[in-house]
Protein backbone atom coordinates (compact mmCIF):
# COMPACT_ATOMS: atom_id res chain seq x y z
CA UNK A 1 0.00 0.00 0.00
CA UNK A 2 2.69 2.47 1.00
CA UNK A 3 4.79 1.87 -2.10
CA UNK A 4 1.72 2.15 -4.32
CA UNK A 5 0.80 5.41 -2.63
CA UNK A 6 4.35 6.74 -2.99
CA UNK A 7 4.28 6.03 -6.72
CA UNK A 8 0.82 7.52 -7.17
CA UNK A 9 1.75 10.64 -5.20
CA UNK A 10 4.94 11.06 -7.24
CA UNK A 11 3.01 10.74 -10.52
CA UNK A 12 0.38 13.25 -9.40
CA UNK A 13 3.01 15.71 -8.28
CA UNK A 14 4.92 15.42 -11.56
CA UNK A 15 1.92 15.62 -13.88
CA UNK A 16 -0.23 18.22 -12.15
CA UNK A 17 2.24 20.42 -10.26
CA UNK A 18 0.68 19.64 -6.88
CA UNK A 19 3.45 19.78 -4.23
CA UNK A 20 4.27 16.26 -3.04
CA UNK A 21 3.83 17.25 0.61
CA UNK A 22 0.21 18.22 -0.06
CA UNK A 23 -0.69 14.76 -1.35
CA UNK A 24 -2.05 12.49 1.40
CA UNK A 25 -3.74 9.08 1.38
CA UNK A 26 -6.95 10.85 2.44
CA UNK A 27 -6.70 13.45 -0.34
CA UNK A 28 -9.54 13.59 -2.85
CA UNK A 29 -7.97 14.00 -6.29
CA UNK A 30 -10.62 16.44 -7.49
CA UNK A 31 -11.90 18.20 -4.36
CA UNK A 32 -8.62 18.47 -2.42
CA UNK A 33 -5.96 18.49 -5.12
CA UNK A 34 -7.92 20.35 -7.81
CA UNK A 35 -7.11 17.84 -10.55
CA UNK A 36 -9.42 18.17 -13.54
CA UNK A 37 -10.50 15.40 -15.89
CA UNK A 38 -7.80 15.99 -18.52
CA UNK A 39 -5.06 16.15 -15.90
CA UNK A 40 -6.48 12.95 -14.48
CA UNK A 41 -6.07 11.32 -17.92
CA UNK A 42 -2.38 12.20 -17.81
CA UNK A 43 -2.16 10.65 -14.37
CA UNK A 44 -3.97 7.48 -15.49
CA UNK A 45 -1.68 7.27 -18.54
CA UNK A 46 1.38 7.44 -16.28
CA UNK A 47 -0.07 4.95 -13.78
CA UNK A 48 -1.02 2.50 -16.55
CA UNK A 49 2.60 2.53 -17.68
CA UNK A 50 4.14 2.44 -14.18
CA UNK A 51 2.08 -0.52 -13.00
CA UNK A 52 1.58 -2.29 -16.34
CA UNK A 53 -2.20 -2.19 -15.99
CA UNK A 54 -5.17 -0.61 -17.70
CA UNK A 55 -7.12 1.42 -15.19
CA UNK A 56 -10.79 0.96 -16.19
CA UNK A 57 -11.65 4.64 -16.07
CA UNK A 58 -14.73 4.31 -18.26
CA UNK A 59 -16.13 1.53 -16.10
CA UNK A 60 -15.50 3.53 -12.93
CA UNK A 61 -17.19 6.60 -14.38
CA UNK A 62 -20.16 4.49 -15.42
CA UNK A 63 -20.45 2.95 -11.94
CA UNK A 64 -20.40 6.41 -10.36
CA UNK A 65 -22.98 7.76 -12.81
CA UNK A 66 -25.24 4.76 -12.14
CA UNK A 67 -24.91 5.14 -8.38
CA UNK A 68 -23.17 1.75 -8.02
CA UNK A 69 -20.07 3.39 -6.56
CA UNK A 70 -19.21 6.71 -4.99
CA UNK A 71 -16.70 9.22 -6.26
CA UNK A 72 -14.71 8.58 -3.09
CA UNK A 73 -14.34 4.91 -3.99
CA UNK A 74 -12.00 5.82 -6.85
CA UNK A 75 -10.80 9.37 -6.34
CA UNK A 76 -9.70 9.35 -2.69
CA UNK A 77 -6.08 8.33 -3.08
CA UNK A 78 -5.98 5.49 -0.54
CA UNK A 79 -8.96 3.96 -2.35
CA UNK A 80 -7.39 4.56 -5.74
CA UNK A 81 -4.24 2.81 -4.50
CA UNK A 82 -6.33 -0.15 -3.27
CA UNK A 83 -7.96 -0.42 -6.71
CA UNK A 84 -4.52 -0.30 -8.35
CA UNK A 85 -3.27 -3.06 -6.03
CA UNK A 86 -6.29 -5.15 -7.03
CA UNK A 87 -5.58 -4.60 -10.73
CA UNK A 88 -1.91 -5.50 -10.29
CA UNK A 89 -2.84 -8.64 -8.31
CA UNK A 90 -5.38 -9.66 -10.96
CA UNK A 91 -2.78 -9.22 -13.67
CA UNK A 92 -0.17 -11.19 -11.72
CA UNK A 93 -2.66 -14.03 -11.14
CA UNK A 94 -3.22 -14.45 -14.90
Amino acid at each position, binding site marked *: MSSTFDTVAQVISETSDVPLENIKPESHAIDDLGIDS*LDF*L*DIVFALDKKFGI*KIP*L*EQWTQEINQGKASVQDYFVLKNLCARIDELVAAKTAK
Partner: protein
Amino acid sequence: MRLEYFDLIDKVDELDLAGSTIRISSRLPERSPVFDGHFPNFPLLPGVMMLEIMNHAAGYLQYRRFNGERFVFLGGVKRAKFRRMVRPGDLIEVRARLTHEGSGFSVAETSLTSGGVTAADAEIILISQEFPNPEIKAALARHSESLAQPAEA
Protein backbone atom coordinates in the same frame (compact mmCIF):
# COMPACT_ATOMS: atom_id res chain seq x y z
CA MET B 1 -7.63 18.51 -49.18
CA ARG B 2 -9.68 21.55 -48.22
CA LEU B 3 -8.06 23.24 -45.27
CA GLU B 4 -10.91 25.59 -44.46
CA TYR B 5 -13.36 22.66 -44.20
CA PHE B 6 -10.96 20.53 -42.17
CA ASP B 7 -11.06 18.01 -45.00
CA LEU B 8 -7.46 17.02 -44.45
CA ILE B 9 -6.85 13.46 -45.63
CA ASP B 10 -6.66 12.78 -49.37
CA LYS B 11 -5.65 9.14 -49.20
CA VAL B 12 -5.02 6.42 -46.68
CA ASP B 13 -1.90 4.73 -48.00
CA GLU B 14 -1.37 2.17 -45.25
CA LEU B 15 -3.64 1.03 -42.46
CA ASP B 16 -2.51 -1.67 -40.04
CA LEU B 17 -5.24 -2.06 -37.45
CA ALA B 18 -3.49 -4.88 -35.59
CA GLY B 19 -0.17 -3.06 -35.58
CA SER B 20 -1.89 0.23 -34.70
CA THR B 21 -0.24 2.27 -37.46
CA ILE B 22 -1.43 4.41 -40.34
CA ARG B 23 0.12 6.41 -43.16
CA ILE B 24 -1.89 8.99 -45.06
CA SER B 25 -1.02 11.49 -47.77
CA SER B 26 -2.43 14.81 -48.92
CA ARG B 27 -1.56 17.44 -51.49
CA LEU B 28 -1.82 20.95 -50.10
CA PRO B 29 -3.99 23.25 -52.19
CA GLU B 30 -2.32 26.03 -54.13
CA ARG B 31 -4.89 28.48 -52.79
CA SER B 32 -6.85 28.65 -49.56
CA PRO B 33 -8.22 31.42 -47.34
CA VAL B 34 -5.90 29.98 -44.69
CA PHE B 35 -2.93 31.03 -46.80
CA ASP B 36 -4.33 34.52 -47.38
CA GLY B 37 -3.56 35.48 -43.81
CA HIS B 38 -0.75 33.06 -43.01
CA PHE B 39 1.11 34.93 -44.41
CA PRO B 40 0.34 37.60 -47.04
CA ASN B 41 2.84 37.12 -49.88
CA PHE B 42 4.47 34.22 -48.05
CA PRO B 43 1.91 31.40 -47.66
CA LEU B 44 2.77 28.71 -45.11
CA LEU B 45 0.76 25.88 -43.59
CA PRO B 46 0.17 26.99 -39.97
CA GLY B 47 1.64 24.75 -37.29
CA VAL B 48 -1.79 24.35 -35.75
CA MET B 49 -3.01 22.88 -39.07
CA MET B 50 -0.07 20.46 -39.16
CA LEU B 51 -1.11 19.35 -35.69
CA GLU B 52 -4.72 18.95 -36.81
CA ILE B 53 -3.68 16.81 -39.80
CA MET B 54 -1.63 14.58 -37.49
CA ASN B 55 -4.64 14.41 -35.15
CA HIS B 56 -6.90 13.41 -38.04
CA ALA B 57 -4.56 10.60 -39.09
CA ALA B 58 -4.25 9.19 -35.57
CA GLY B 59 -7.94 9.72 -34.88
CA TYR B 60 -8.92 7.94 -38.08
CA LEU B 61 -6.69 5.01 -37.16
CA GLN B 62 -8.37 4.71 -33.78
CA TYR B 63 -11.85 5.23 -35.27
CA ARG B 64 -11.21 2.31 -37.61
CA ARG B 65 -9.83 0.18 -34.75
CA PHE B 66 -13.18 0.77 -33.04
CA ASN B 67 -14.88 -0.28 -36.28
CA GLY B 68 -16.53 3.13 -36.55
CA GLU B 69 -18.44 2.61 -33.31
CA ARG B 70 -16.76 5.28 -31.15
CA PHE B 71 -16.32 9.02 -31.47
CA VAL B 72 -12.61 9.85 -31.35
CA PHE B 73 -11.32 13.39 -30.84
CA LEU B 74 -8.29 15.33 -29.65
CA GLY B 75 -7.87 15.44 -25.87
CA GLY B 76 -4.39 16.80 -25.49
CA VAL B 77 -0.97 17.42 -26.96
CA LYS B 78 1.90 16.33 -24.79
CA ARG B 79 4.64 17.48 -27.13
CA ALA B 80 4.75 19.12 -30.55
CA LYS B 81 7.56 20.45 -32.70
CA PHE B 82 7.30 22.26 -36.02
CA ARG B 83 10.61 21.78 -37.76
CA ARG B 84 10.21 22.87 -41.39
CA MET B 85 7.97 25.10 -43.46
CA VAL B 86 5.23 23.46 -45.53
CA ARG B 87 4.04 25.40 -48.58
CA PRO B 88 1.04 25.42 -50.93
CA GLY B 89 1.17 22.52 -53.40
CA ASP B 90 3.44 20.38 -51.21
CA LEU B 91 2.72 16.67 -50.96
CA ILE B 92 2.74 15.62 -47.34
CA GLU B 93 2.67 12.25 -45.60
CA VAL B 94 1.55 11.69 -42.04
CA ARG B 95 2.33 8.64 -39.95
CA ALA B 96 0.73 7.75 -36.66
CA ARG B 97 1.33 4.90 -34.25
CA LEU B 98 -0.67 4.19 -31.13
CA THR B 99 1.68 3.81 -28.18
CA HIS B 100 -0.83 3.35 -25.38
CA GLU B 101 -4.39 2.13 -25.21
CA GLY B 102 -6.10 3.34 -22.05
CA SER B 103 -9.70 3.20 -20.92
CA GLY B 104 -11.48 5.90 -22.91
CA PHE B 105 -8.27 7.39 -24.20
CA SER B 106 -5.20 6.50 -26.22
CA VAL B 107 -1.83 8.03 -26.94
CA ALA B 108 -0.23 8.32 -30.38
CA GLU B 109 3.15 9.29 -31.79
CA THR B 110 2.66 11.20 -35.02
CA SER B 111 4.86 12.81 -37.64
CA LEU B 112 4.32 14.86 -40.78
CA THR B 113 6.84 14.76 -43.62
CA SER B 114 7.19 16.84 -46.76
CA GLY B 115 9.64 15.80 -49.46
CA GLY B 116 10.72 12.93 -47.24
CA VAL B 117 11.85 15.29 -44.48
CA THR B 118 10.12 15.57 -41.11
CA ALA B 119 8.29 18.87 -40.89
CA ALA B 120 6.49 18.26 -37.58
CA ASP B 121 6.01 15.62 -34.91
CA ALA B 122 3.83 15.36 -31.87
CA GLU B 123 2.60 13.07 -29.14
CA ILE B 124 -1.14 13.42 -28.83
CA ILE B 125 -3.89 12.11 -26.59
CA LEU B 126 -7.12 10.94 -28.19
CA ILE B 127 -10.37 10.66 -26.29
CA SER B 128 -12.89 8.02 -27.36
CA GLN B 129 -16.50 7.86 -26.29
CA GLU B 130 -19.96 7.05 -27.57
CA PHE B 131 -21.19 9.19 -30.44
CA PRO B 132 -23.16 12.22 -29.20
CA ASN B 133 -25.82 11.66 -31.88
CA PRO B 134 -26.50 9.25 -34.77
CA GLU B 135 -26.11 11.98 -37.38
CA ILE B 136 -22.43 12.58 -36.68
CA LYS B 137 -21.83 8.83 -36.60
CA ALA B 138 -23.40 8.49 -40.05
CA ALA B 139 -21.53 11.53 -41.38
CA LEU B 140 -18.18 10.15 -40.25
CA ALA B 141 -19.02 6.74 -41.71
CA ARG B 142 -19.74 8.39 -45.07
CA HIS B 143 -16.51 10.35 -44.89
CA SER B 144 -14.57 7.19 -44.02
CA GLU B 145 -16.02 5.38 -47.03
CA SER B 146 -15.05 8.30 -49.28
CA LEU B 147 -11.37 7.97 -48.45
CA ALA B 148 -9.25 5.86 -50.75
CA GLN B 149 -8.56 2.76 -48.72
CA PRO B 150 -5.62 0.38 -48.94
CA ALA B 151 -5.94 -3.33 -48.31
CA GLU B 152 -6.11 -3.76 -44.55
CA ALA B 153 -3.13 -5.33 -42.89
